[in-house]
């Protein structure tokens, strides 16, 4: 009985246009596999590697500056080599990716949860409500997200002691990136809401005295959320880049819990003394991660937006 329903479900899924489009886009398949692998490596780091690179007690200075395994002087115990303090690069990348993904995903969730409600309210009500919300969004859009993040970081750094700051660094970063990028989600949602509110199914709901909030949640939201979530996928990649940039500049994630950006910054100073691997591998991971997420986002956008086809 259960098998039947599962096979029926699978028949439905495999016959679906989305599945078809996915299976006929090799680039998307590769990007998805890469993303899944990176997610698995990042969140399964504590099972996949014996090293705990950010535990101060595990520093092995004797093993510092070991090149990757295939280079002369390399060692199969440290596949991608070690950094100046003897930390395993591969393990550092795994933990670093974890931090980058957490920051990327949570900050997008934050901006989406600000942007979607404000966008729906602006688009549905129109008039001065719309003007007020969207002007505010416009003003915020003129300030680059990095600048906003720098500002918030600066404020927390001066008001909080350095120990406290280290603990709150990641939440602060998430909030600053999240707050900085809500306007684009609000814009997309708003334009969708403006179209939907004129449709007669909204009038039909008004006719039976449905409260406005209920109309927005039950009718408008399900009909406008799709495009916003697709853009949010690409937003994750952008947030990871912003986080990496900030961390590279030294104002993001502290070096005690490094993200990919922090690792690139740390390795950057060794680039000219020949220890290229310390910065190259984190940077390479960042590129692949951002590229994969972007490619998936592009595919989602093309598949679910018939106008582009």
């Amino acid at each position, binding site marked *: 009985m259960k098998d039947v329903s599962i096979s029926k479900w699978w028949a439905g899924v495999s016959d679906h246009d989305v599945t078809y489009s996915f299976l006929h886009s090799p680039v998307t398949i590769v990007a998805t596999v890469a993303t899944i692998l990176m997610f698995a490596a990042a969140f399964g780091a504590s099972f996949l590697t014996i090293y705990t690179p950010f535990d101060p007690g595990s520093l092995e200075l004797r093993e510092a500056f070991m090149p990757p395994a295939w280079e002369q002087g390399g060692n199969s115990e440290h596949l991608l080599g070690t950094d100046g303090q003897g930390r395993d690069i591969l393990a550092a990348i795994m933990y670093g990716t974890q931090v980058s993904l957490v920051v990327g995903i949570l900050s997008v969730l934050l901006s989406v949860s600000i942007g979607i409600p404000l966008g729906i309210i602006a688009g549905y009500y129109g008039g001065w409500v719309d003007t007020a919300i969207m002007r505010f969004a416009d003003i915020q859009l003129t300030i680059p997200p990095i600048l906003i993040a720098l500002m918030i970081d600066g404020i927390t750094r001066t008001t909080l002691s350095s120990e406290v700051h280290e603990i709150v660094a990641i939440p602060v970063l998430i909030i600053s990136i999240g707050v900085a990028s809500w306007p684009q989600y609000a814009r997309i949602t708003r334009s969708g809401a403006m179209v939907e509110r004129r449709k007669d*199914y909204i009038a039909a709901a008004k*006719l039976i*005295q449905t409260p406005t909030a209920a109309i927005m949640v039950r009718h408008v939201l399900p009909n406008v959320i799709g495009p916003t979530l697709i853009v949010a996928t690409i937003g994750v990649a952008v947030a990871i880049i912003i986080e990496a940039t900030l961390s590279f500049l030294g104002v993001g994630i502290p070096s005690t819990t490094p993200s990919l950006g922090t690792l690139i910054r740390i390795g950057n100073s060794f680039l000219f003394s020949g220890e290229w691997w310390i910065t190259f591998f984190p940077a390479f991971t960042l590129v692949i991660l951002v590229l994969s997420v972007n490619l998936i986002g592009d595919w989602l956008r093309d598949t679910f937006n018939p106008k582009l086809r």
Partner: protein
Amino acid sequence: MSEQNILEVQGLKMYFDVSPPFVTRLLNRMPKQVLKAVDGLSFSIERGKTFSLVGESGCGKSTVARAVAGLYTPTGGDIIIDGQNLATAKDRSKITDISRQMQMIFQSPYASLDPRWRVRDIIAEPIRAFKLAANKEDEWRQVEQLLVQVGLSASDGEKYPHEFSGGQRQRISIARALSSKPEFLICDEPTSALDVSVQAQILNLMTALQDELGLTYLFISHDLAVIDHMSDWIGVMYLGRVCEITPKSELFSNPRHPYTRLLLEAIPDLKGRSHRKPLKGEVPNPITPPSGCTFHPRCPYANERCKQEQPVLGEYGPSQVACHAVEEFRI
């Protein structure tokens, strides 16, 4: 208000501010622009009958439908439904009661159903809003009954709107409209987006339901043949005003207002019997309507008085006509 009337509309005015944004207006020294979509309209509908509004696009007939439905707040005038004045009703429970008795069927079968909802939820929405079901099972039972009543099958409730054709969707709209057990249905061009053969099915369904449930219809259409088939009384509208209100038999056998006459002559004739005479000109911009009788620039009977003085509805036999030429026995 007479007992037999379910709806009375008195002096309904519906103005819309269509001015450009404030700053633009200030820079170009433009005055505020007001679109008088409906300008002083009165009619009443007898219980169990069909009253139709007909006119060309932009004449305000759909605006009347939406104002009566309560989707617009009228600029002026009264809308009295079952003795309750909708335009001035403040009491929430009264409004709820009025809106339960009144439902609407929309023109586009594509835009009037939420694409993300299952058909059974679409139909059940009014049942839930007015708490008309004792429990979930009762609700499903009612929904299934409605689906069968409009000629769909009970299992169609599980599907989404996009799985249905235009005609079937319009059946779903009707089922939904009936779910709150209304007495009065507002039908805004319910078949104009459908193919002719499907239109006949929907019109037949609507007449059958009217007989069965004793419904009253306010029917809006631009198609005089459909109007003729459906109506008991007809109001002809031109630029936000009504020019003639008349029983169906009178309209087609004895049209009085020059606009009504010309409109009847402009209908393409399937039998190719008479050669139709195209009406001169087009409907003027409603933001800047002509002076006096708004129809005078296109009217073959217009004189000086028509250019200056707005005619009011007068009684002629069973009909009401707003025309100076009719009043002066010139036609």
